[in-house]
């Protein structure tokens, strides 16, 4: 999965926040409330995102209207899939709690956990 650059991330976040197609000038206005970017800078980055197939666009009047290809949730799912797939051998980058287990091993361990729980007479965990 291709990671975004800093400005790319800010633009994607702004488009997701809006929830509707936006022009370069719309995005520029929102981003420039906290910084000072040139119109051409934002235009170039959004054009690149379009080329990378992260944004679609359609002409409206005299300006392009941009829209993310993937929703924020879809992007989150892709990110997690990436994280889960590789977490075993990249502990220097992230350390993941969830272990890999075959279904039969899960069943065996579940039995052992329940046995230990009733043995220690702890109240059954209140499911949140």
């Amino acid at each position: 999965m291709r990671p975004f650059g800093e400005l790319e991330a800010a633009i994607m976040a702004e488009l997701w926040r809006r929830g509707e197609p936006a022009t370069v000038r719309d995005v520029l206005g929102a981003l420039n409330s906290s910084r000072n970017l040139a119109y051409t800078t934002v235009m170039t980055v959004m054009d690149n995102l379009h080329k990378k197939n992260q944004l679609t666009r359609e002409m409206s009047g005299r300006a392009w209207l941009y829209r993310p290809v993937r929703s924020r949730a879809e992007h989150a799912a892709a990110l997690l899939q990436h994280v889960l797939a590789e977490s075993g051998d990249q502990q220097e980058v992230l350390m993941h709690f969830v272990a890999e287990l075959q279904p039969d091993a899960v069943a065996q361990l579940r039995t052992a956990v329940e046995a230990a729980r009733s043995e220690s007479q702890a109240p059954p965990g209140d499911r949140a």
Partner: protein
Amino acid sequence: MSASLALAAIGVAILVLGPRLVDAGWTAQAPRLAILAWQALTFTAVATFVLAGVTLLIPITTLAGGLGRVFHACAESVANAYGSAEFPSGALVGILLAGLMPLWVLSCVTWELVSGWLRRRELHRSIDMVAEPDRGLGVLVVDASAPAAFCVPGRTSRIVVTTGTLDALSHDELRGVLAHEAAHLRARHNLAVTMSQALVRAFPRVRLFRAASAQTRQLIELLADDAAAASVDRVSVASAIVSLAEMRAPAAAMAMAQEGAVLRVSRLLQPLTPIDPWRHRLLAGGLWGVLLTPVLIAGLPTLSAALSDLCNI
């Protein structure tokens, strides 16, 4: 020459016998000591060969180093003590071991540190785009049903969980998971993994380094589990491991990953049996022995030459 040979022999012995630590029963009982033991073994394995190279070079440097006449006798006695290496081949091996090998290892360490840092920065950015901070729990929450709970170390380290994880776990299980991840970050476990991985990168075919890396990855999980069990209880942590594994899409689990997970759960379900204190002291002493022996062997000829009356230093 004899010092160089002795050092090389120790180095080979560590490379051959070191991987046997995998089968030692005490490592799961004392994961911290076990990580230190792997670090001592791998560090010493490299250090003995570097020192062997240094001792090969000493006769040459002391004789050709333009030491004054006053020190001529001293240099000669030091050189004699180390034995004169046949100049070209001895020097070549010496430069290779004492010069190029440390440089190579250092560049591999640097590479691992920098690439890890870059990948973490990318990951931080991707996560920040899709996660919402939960101020109560002090974590970032991603709205997704998949079971995920992980930490990303770094200057701005963070713990990330999915809504699926929050829904599936009981209060105590969740506290255990968060304590586990916080322990990773607090103790900088990623650094231990990075160092062990750098040696695998430097010498990919050496069994000792591969074993050390795989064991370090497993042992940091045991350490973090113990920290989690200290803040909740052992059964809740074990239960959280099983609950989240249950939610994962049934994929072909790697045999080794599976073994590791089974060890984690069964270890948590047994009462904690700390290692016998005398055994602990003995093992720690052995660890120091492994670390110090090469230095002593390398330094011994200089020491005895210094003590002889030829050498007034």
